[in-house]
């Protein structure tokens, strides 16, 4: 199964003089069970695209197939709540959604909306909070008395507690410190590897995308410019230049090594893998 966008367009303020076509005839297939990155300049429609995945935005025309549902423009769409449990969406600036008196209650709010018991919801909340690295001591603190980065983690936990099978993250690490951002990404990657969850992540951080995402979707002015394996995009100088992408440091590094005569395999994507390979090569010489 895959997530399929079929000639999907989305227009903000349709029918108004200032209507704006944010998505223009999108045809796209996202593979389930993989990590997919969505990149593109600011305003290219990334957020608009991912907000369709859990039907917060409904297409102006075209349709979207996700899990076992089809969402068609201009049709009555019922039971979206059930879809939103399976497709968890963490917003850009998600820290504004917090409202309960304690962190634990806030994270348990989501699961409780799906009619499970208080204890069960709290259990799920504890698990999710531990996963995002919030200490048990903090569970009874008010979510308004903590730092922005911690708020972000709690907002993410609020979605993780729903245990969705597709996890969509809109710039989850913007505003986090580098170490915190790295930790966050690793949590998502682990969820993908251990539980097979589909991860779709909007990001401006090409380093992270290169390191972790199997597939990449590149958006440009509301259209899909590229969709396919991440390595094929960034390892291709022509595409990198054509779309003015910021080249990941690892790619530049690999190129320099190639110029020095090392035959670095294309599938090396992290600095760790590269170090291991270079160690072997240097010893050989």
């Amino acid at each position, binding site marked *: 199964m895959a997530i399929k966008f079929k000639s999907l367009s989305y227009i903000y303020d349709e029918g108004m003089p*200032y209507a704006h076509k944010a998505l223009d005839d999108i045809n796209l297939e996202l593979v389930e069970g993989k990590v997919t990155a969505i990149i593109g300049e600011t305003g290219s429609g990334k957020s608009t695209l991912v*907000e369709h995945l859990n039907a917060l935005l409904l297409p102006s025309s075209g349709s979207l197939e996700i899990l076992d549902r089809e969402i068609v423009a201009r049709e009555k769409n019922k039971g979206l709540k059930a879809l*939103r449990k399976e497709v968890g*969406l963490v*917003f850009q600036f998600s820290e*504004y*959604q917090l409202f309960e008196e304690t962190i634990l209650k806030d994270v348990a*709010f*989501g699961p409780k909306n799906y009619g499970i018991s208080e204890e069960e919801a709290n259990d799920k909340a504890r698990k999710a909070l531990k996963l995002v690295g919030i200490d048990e001591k903090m569970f009874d603190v008010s979510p*308004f008395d903590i730092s922005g980065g911690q708020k972000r983690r709690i907002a993410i936990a609020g979605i993780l507690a729903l245990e969705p099978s597709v996890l969509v993250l809109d710039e989850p690490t913007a505003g986090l410190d580098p170490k915190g951002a790295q930790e966050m990404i690793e949590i998502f990657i682990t969820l993908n590897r251990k539980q097979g969850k589909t991860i779709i992540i909007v990001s401006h951080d090409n380093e992270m995308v290169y390191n972790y995402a199997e597939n990449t979707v590149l958006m440009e002015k509301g259209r899909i410019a590229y969709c396919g394996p991440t390595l094929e995009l960034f390892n291709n100088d022509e595409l990198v230049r054509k779309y003015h992408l910021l080249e990941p440091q690892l790619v530049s590094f690999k190129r320099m090594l190639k110029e020095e005569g090392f035959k670095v395999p294309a599938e090396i994507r992290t600095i760790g893998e590269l170090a291991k390979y270079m160690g072997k090569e240097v010893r050989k010489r």
Partner: protein
Amino acid sequence: MNNLVFGKYIPIKSPIHDLDPRAKIAALFVMIAAVFIPKSWYCYALLGVIILGIVLLSHIKITMILKALKPTMFMMAFLLIINCLTVKTGTVLLSYKSFVIYSDAVLNTLFIVVRLLLMIMLTTILTATTKPLDLTLGIESLLSPLKVIHFPYHEIAMMISIALRFIPTIIEETMRIMNSQKSRGVDFEEGKLREKINAILSLIIPLFTVAFQRAFELADAMEARGYVPDQERTKYHTLKFRFKDFLFLLFAHILLALMILSRFYL
């Protein structure tokens, strides 16, 4: 929430957009007065044609005006019912057992409805063709004679302009929080009363926090740039009252005069 048309500025060019906001505000008040004076249907036909003419001149789509009118339908239906139950004069239009509808009830309601329609059209013209900032500049300028009685007209205008400026922001913020909570399984449309209350709470509390946060940030930013409330200020953006503004205002007054005269001669 996105369909909120009433009070929204439409950024296009038109002769009406081009008028001085003071002329528009003053003319609006004069014309609203004109709308509430006459008792004859001829006058309303004339007013209707003129106001529709202004709408056309302002290049606003009629459908937009209709959308602005939609929320008032409920009120109008309510008015009709009340009138039907209370007004007992005129000829009998309809009778069913002890329930009788008199012609005056319908006529009265029609009068009120037409007046309301025209008034809403006028205010929509004003807000759709005047930038919020110009609107407050206009209000400030119109209130400025009150400084002789130490009326804080500048502060009032500043408050209005800040409030207006933040309406779209707050709407956007509301949409965003609503979407976040929907993603956590909140259902704003369906559900039992208890769930509804919970849904509203999950929206209101973050909204208040954000609003206060915004307010404090703005206050800090203004102070950091040396804003002192009761200081005399110069303006970057000044209003110019031109001949066409005078004509527009004159036209509104003539209309008012006509309507007053109609009470005596029609």
